[in-house]
């Protein structure tokens, strides 16, 4: 395995779906923060938005395994 490939596997893992899902979750969370504004519901509820999106990303990365034998 080349050094670059090893480093990619080390940091991003074995699949692209999980880091891509995590990136989408973070972008969506940042957008939600902008929409909510600093004085809105964000400080109290923002963490739960991120938690839910991260768990969706994890579930999506496992979806392929359900189809495979």
């Amino acid at each position: 395995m080349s050094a670059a490939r090893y480093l990619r596997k080390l940091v991003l893992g074995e699949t692209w779906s999980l880091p891509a899902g995590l990136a989408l979750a973070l972008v969506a969370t940042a957008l939600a923060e902008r929409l909510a504004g600093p004085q809105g519901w964000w400080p109290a509820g923002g963490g739960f938005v991120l938690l839910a999106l991260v768990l969706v990303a994890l579930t999506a990365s496992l979806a392929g395994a359900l189809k495979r034998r």
Partner: protein
Amino acid sequence: MAFTLTLVGAALAVGLELLEALAIVLAVGLTRRFRDAVLGAAAAALVLTLLALVLGPLLIARVPLEPLRLVIGVGLLLFGLEWLRKGVLRLAGRRSPSSSFREFVDEREALEELPAPAPGTADWAARAIAFKGVLLEGIEVILIVTVLAARPGGLAPAMIGSALALLAVLAVGYRLRAPLQRIPETHLKYVVGIVLSAFGVFFAAEGLGASWPFDDLALAYIALIVLAVSQAQVAVLTRGERRQAKAVP
């Protein structure tokens, strides 16, 4: 709560990675010569120490606190979610269980095919294999411990957890092969995945300006939520596996 979880997370993550490195060093030592295996491992440990000395202070000194929380959170999520994904697949029977003993056997079989070194000469093949094995497993250890230690108050528990793990792995190494077979690595790696993911969500959310009800105690309920969801995923995947097995005549 944060102290205990950091200590447990660091100890488990470091211990499991070191166990894999130990399996490679043992395979080299038992198949070739222990002196060369230890020399290769020691050289890798030296490189890793230098890496840790550069990476930690660089991360803490150069990145301001708020973005640092986000960086730490994302780093922990990348590692934690990957360990968790593999853990769910292993518990559901969709991936072979994690086993340092199997790694030890595979490495030993590969080494037996190499020609033996002449007596009195350095065994560079053995040194290189031990060096590479320890270096590759060690880099993951350095990255995980650095992000755990970089958060406020994280240095002490991360260091204590790592030291405990090092002592435990050395004790396992002293007793050689048998304990490698008895360690429930699949379940321990799954737990590490939950702990690192909980820390990751906690810090990434704080880095994005959110605060958690009950402060540090949030780590416990985030971990419980991640545990519940991942157990549901294991159940769904296990049911799917059984259904597919029945469908195949």
